[in-house]
Each structure stands twice: as C-alpha cells, then as structure tokens.
C-alpha cells in the first residue's frame, strides 16, 4: 500500500478519530509494513511481545490452545482491526496466537514499542495521545471481557448452588 493510501485508510478508522491529519502522518512515519501469508504466524500464545498491529488488508486468525493442546479458532479479525496492543502496556505473555489462514494474505502496519519511546522524546504530545488512545481502547475491551467473565462465573455459580 502506498503511503497516501495508508493515510486514507487510517483516517477512516474510529481509533484515530482524535488525531489531526498532521499527527496521523507523523504516526505513519513510525510504522513499518509487513505482509504475512499462507499460515504464517504473527505471534505465538505465551510469547512476550514488543509491538502491536493494525490490519490494512486481509484478515487474521486468533487462536488459543485448549487444555488438550489443540489450537482452536477464537476469532477472525478483519482490516481496520488493532491487535496485540496489550504488549505495549504490559509485559505479560501474549494471551493467544495470531496467524494468517492457509492460502490467505494479510498486510499489517507494525508499531514497535521502541518507536513509541523514540516518539515520546521528539513529540511528547503525540506519544501521549497515542498511549491514551490505546489505554481507552484496551479499557473498552477489558470492560467487555470482564462482563463476560462475570456472566460466566455467575452462570456457573447458579449451577453449583
């Protein structure tokens, strides 16, 4: 994807709605681009990560190992999705595996933690905005996950009663 296409693509995402055009341009300059294909693994469950991703084209499978050791498909996320962002905030292992399906291809923007650290030296305002946007995004996700966890726990409790 050429750089003006990437810009237009990100401009449409809700994630960047608080970013000015100039800020989005600068953000793009710290992103790398990578293509994954044919069952390639982006990261493995349990590994420690230092980058997060935005899908610009194609889709990515999120897989989790079950207690019997099989990999189960949890979700397929499409272009426009942001994923792997927790590793920027917290040094805990990846909670699932991300991979590209067989005979499929995905184009990703890769944002490394170290690039964000460099950005915070050259443009603290923009780095802060990005971190606060990530925090808000993670928080909304954690809210959904905790609702589900509570719901599941309760359903379970009602069986045990």
């Amino acid at each position: 994807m050429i750089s003006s296409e990437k810009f237009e693509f990100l401009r449409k995402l809700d994630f960047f709605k608080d970013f000015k055009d100039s800020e989005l341009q600068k953000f793009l300059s710290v992103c790398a681009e990578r293509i994954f294909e044919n069952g390639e693994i982006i990261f493995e469950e349990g590994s420690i990560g230092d980058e997060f991703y935005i899908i610009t084209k194609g889709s990515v499978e999120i897989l989790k190992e079950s207690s019997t050791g099989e990999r189960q498909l949890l979700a397929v996320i499409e272009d426009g999705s942001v994923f792997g962002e927790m590793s920027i905030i917290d040094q805990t292992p990846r909670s699932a595996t991300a991979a590209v399906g067989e005979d499929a291809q995905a184009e990703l923007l890769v944002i490394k933690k170290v690039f964000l650290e460099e950005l915070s030296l050259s443009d603290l305002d923009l780095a802060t905005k990005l971190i606060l946007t990530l925090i808000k995004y993670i928080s909304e996700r954690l809210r959904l996950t905790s609702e589900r966890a509570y719901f599941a726990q309760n359903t379970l409790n009602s069986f045990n009663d």
Partner: protein
Amino acid sequence: MSDSIFSDLTDKELEEILKLSEEIIFEPNQTIFKQGDSGDALYILKQGKVSLLKKNNMGSELNMGIAERGMFLGELSILDSGPQAFSAIASERCITLKITKQKLDILKKINKKLLCKFFISIIRYVNYRLRKANENFAASRSNMQKL
C-alpha cells in the same frame, strides 16, 4: 497488591498522585457509586470492604464479589469515560482515597508522562485481575466437567 500496583512510579511520582487525592470515608451500607453512573472518580480502597453488585436484565441484583484493601474502584470508567459497570456499596466502614477525573485532567496538562504512567498502572492492574478471574473460571469449569 497495593505496593505492586504502583511499582513503576517513583516515590516522588506517587506523592504527586496522592496529592491529587482526597480521603473520603464511607459508613456501612453507604453507596460509593451506582451502576450506570458516569464515572467521574477513581477510588483506592485504603481500609474496609466493599460489595460489588450488578443488576441483571431481570432486575435482580447479583453479588459480583468483594473489594478489599488496596483495590481500585471505578477504574475502568476513569480510563474510557464509560458508565460504572456495577454498584459499589460499603459493607463496613471504609476509608478511600478519591481521585476525580477533574484532577486527572489537570495532571494531563502539567505532567502528561505521569498521567500515562498512572493509567498504565491501572491497565496492568485490571489485566492482572481479569487473568485471575479467567483462570478461576477455567478451573471451576474443568471441575464441573469432572462431576
């Protein structure tokens, strides 16, 4: 846990955060906040226990657990400006440190870096708690399957 939540902050930074806080005491059965309230403050529980209640669609209130010393209350709403996900009621006399959104907005103007560090500490805390909840859930589910 209360020591490790803020382990990334220096003593000086922690002092700066504490300067933003106000000590608020809740008597037994007093409501700290209600489910659906707009989240305008974060509470750090210094002493006492708090019951967390959630109304389901049938209107009955379910007990979601107990918050204890060193835990946060209202933390997600401070991060994403969404409504409180449950009600928090003091089950005994509680001493809390309240940090309002207004105070954090001021911090954003004068010390962005500290605000980010503080928020990141909260995210880590929530993430840790959620992982624990998921593990407990997985454990009790596998126990159930054995039955």
